């Protein structure tokens, strides 16, 4: 058991042989553990290990009580062969493909071993996360074409969309196989905005990671930064003051509020109900101005640092209640419109079993009946005692709309309660210069779902590896599953908006 900032937290690290991995993994998943993160590391020779190696770390979590178990698998650098867990865990299979692309690990037993992160024009044999990768090489000719599933049959045709779209949205390519207007199959090709952000963290001082963490996904500045700071504090065994933890929880809810409010109207806009959009944009603007007063930044940047947090000002609970009433008026107007209700109901249903198997997180999971919320399972401080986590079972666009409404309500309730437990100011714990090697994990319920960061700190006290997982990484594969069957092409934008997944957070 390693040192922990939180005495209630249970943490285990197990060194595992590759042949043993599957059994241990399955033992943990059958005991209620969920795979939160898989991170690979290129370890240079040191005292314990005279040979360079690739170390793969599986972070398994469960809660409450907050429990994290790490499985460490060490592979020789000359021939790193990792037995695939794709057969028993869908998300593990996706992490394995990522590691295969970035670290050159050979994954055996994977049913779909195609490239994931690196597009086909990157030359084979260049693994950017290895220490000796060097500068990016020149692009190859397309070395293998992307494995789009081709659907044949009378009247079946393909619609390619993106990565450049008519509106201002992030780049993603969608390939629809369609008969008439019904979607038979949809394949999303992402990683157009892969920036190598995990590599950018390396060699920074932990305190300098904040500015990067806040920019992993622009709408989740608090979520990612908090996960990063919690991971640093976990590594440093540092506990921030209680007031700072309350301010962090408040900022997390303010981020949830402005994003959920925006989504409600955006879903209305996608069915041509522009008035809902106009009014949620007005409410969003109010919330952003509150954000600016609280933190000095409309998107809540710059307030959370390792060891502390600050707020210049905090709003009156009455202001939040007014905003909540305002939101409900807009929701009532939308739900009074038969066409809006008709468009939302039964559209793009994600069945509970599919949601569970894919490992979905956040409101997507909760709208399909999965009871997952890191605020309950991995509470980073004693601030969530009275939190209510709503779940719905329909799994359609309407459920994902209503779950957001419920979360806005519970969020405002939580904010009202927390505002009484702190006051504006800057609260920080003494934060030592870190000596390594150390590692830490941060788990935060961002507005999209559970964000996980795992970082390692070198002997010099700098970040040697940061692995970032946005809930979008887990949720993207659920979108095509929800579409397959009876969703029609013109309903795709609405379905997509109801998931509202991050491209930047996924592509990293």
């Amino acid at each position, binding site marked *: 058991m390693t040192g922990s900032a939180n005495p209630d937290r249970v943490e285990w690290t197990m060194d595992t042989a590759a042949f043993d991995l599957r059994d241990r993994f399955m033992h943990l998943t059958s005991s209620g553990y969920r795979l939160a993160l898989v991170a690979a590391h290129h370890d240079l020779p040191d005292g314990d290990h005279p040979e360079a190696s690739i170390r793969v770390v599986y972070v398994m979590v469960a809660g409450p009580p907050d429990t994290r178990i790490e499985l460490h698998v060490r592979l020789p650098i000359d021939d790193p062969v990792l037995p695939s867990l794709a057969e028993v865990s869908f998300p593990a299979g996706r992490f394995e493909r990522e590691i295969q692309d970035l670290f050159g690990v050979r994954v055996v037993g994977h049913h779909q071993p195609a490239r994931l992160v690196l597009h086909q024009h990157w030359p084979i044999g260049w693994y950017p996360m290895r220490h000796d990768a060097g500068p990016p090489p020149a692009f190859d000719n397309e070395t293998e074409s992307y494995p789009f599933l081709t659907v044949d049959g009378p009247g079946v045709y393909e619609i390619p969309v993106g990565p450049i779209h008519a509106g201002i949205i992030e780049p993603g390519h969608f390939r629809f196989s369609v008969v008439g*207007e019904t979607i038979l199959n949809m394949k999303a090709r992402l990683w157009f905005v892969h920036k190598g952000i995990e590599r950018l963290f390396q060699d920074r001082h932990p305190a300098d990671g904040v500015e990067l963490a806040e920019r992993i996904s622009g709408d989740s500045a608090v979520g990612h930064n908090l996960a990063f700071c919690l991971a640093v504090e976990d590594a440093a065994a540092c506990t921030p003051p209680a007031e700072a933890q309350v301010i962090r929880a408040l900022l997390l809810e303010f981020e949830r509020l402005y994003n959920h409010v925006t989504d409600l109207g955006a879903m209305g806009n996608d069915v041509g109900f522009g008035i809902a959009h106009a009014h949620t944009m007005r409410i969003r603007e109010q919330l952003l101005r509150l954000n600016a007063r609280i933190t000095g930044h409309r998107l809540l940047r710059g307030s959370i640092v390792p060891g502390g947090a600050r707020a210049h000002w905090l709003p009156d609970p009455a202001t939040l209640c007014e905003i909540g009433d305002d939101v409900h008026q807009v929701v009532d107007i939308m739900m009074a*419109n038969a066409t809006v209700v008709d468009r939302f109901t039964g559209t793009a249903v994600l069945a509970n079993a599919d949601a569970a198997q894919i490992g979905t997180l956040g409101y997507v999971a909760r709208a399909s009946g999965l009871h997952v919320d890191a605020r309950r399972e991995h509470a980073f401080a004693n601030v969530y005692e009275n939190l209510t986590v709503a779940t719905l079972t329909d799994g359609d666009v309407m459920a994902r709309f209503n779950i957001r409404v419920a979360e806005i309500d519970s969020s405002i309730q939580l904010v009202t309660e927390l505002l009484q437990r702190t006051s504006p100011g800057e609260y920080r714990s003494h934060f030592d210069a870190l000596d390594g090697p150390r590692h830490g994990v941060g788990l935060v319920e961002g507005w999209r779902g559970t964000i996980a960061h795992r970082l390692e700190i070198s002997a010099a006290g700098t970040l040697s590896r940061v692995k970032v997982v946005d809930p979008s990484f887990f949720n993207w594969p659920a979108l095509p599953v929800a579409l397959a069957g009876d969703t029609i092409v013109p309903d795709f934008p609405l379905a997509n908006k109801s998931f509202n997944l991050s491209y930047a957070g996924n592509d990293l």
Partner: protein
Amino acid sequence: MSATGIAVAMLQVVLTIAAAPLLVGMMRLVRARLEGRVGAPIRQPWRDLRKLLRKERMVSANTGWVFSIAPLVLLASAALVAGIVPFLSTRSALDQVGDLFAVVYLLLLGTVFLSLAGLDAGTAFGGMGASREMTIAAIAEPTVLVAIFALSVSTGSSNLGAIVAATLAHPSTAASPESLLAFAALAVVTIAETGRIPVDNPATHLELTMIHEAMILEYSGPDLAMVELAAHLRLVVFLGLLANLFVPWGIATTVQPLHLAAAAAAVAIKLVALAATIAAIEVFIAKVRLFRVPELLAASFVLAFLAVTASFFLA
């Protein structure tokens, strides 16, 4: 065909072209204000057209002659219809061809060419938009025919000028069952044919939901300006038909300048009122699921059919 008659028709075309973008700008402004937004000024569509006309003409190498002439056919057919329909006077120079069948098929000609142009570039969106547009046109066009036919039964003529003149002569027919039923049918079709909510959303940026916009995605610069202007013109033509067929008062029965000026003012008021009403209604309705559009249009066809039935039995 007198010289003044030709002048009147020309005047009508010029006025319609000048007014159509303004009417669209007005509709957007009404919508913006009702949603609590400031909105763009009324002349914005004209500014957009000016901007597009200054741009370079870009044409995909994969397109053929259909793609090149479609904007011209679309604009020319819309402008011709704008000259035919009785906006200003019942005694237009084009009165002889001012036949409801001619008008419907001229409008359909533009629709067909635009759909072919959508297919021509070979992109998925163009084909998707064309397929949807044809699905809608296949139900909407018969409805237009049947609805106007209901009006022509009582008049005994399919000439639009004659129908309008007859309504003027017998004002009570404007409130007859067949007339009201035909109005309702034509109103629904107008919404569908001009790509308004709840059938299509002219303001959307979502490629996959588009109908009209999907067909014109490949157009740019002056070609796009022509397509846009034609779309504005078609909106005015449909609204003008709706206004003058059922509420013809104000239209001139002569070609005297003073009467024409009064008629222009009258039709302007009617168009603004109708357009503002549509824009206001659009604020409160959402776009229906694509598969419900045929249901909506089928209902309007039934209304039109009832209008014809009523005009035979109640006449």
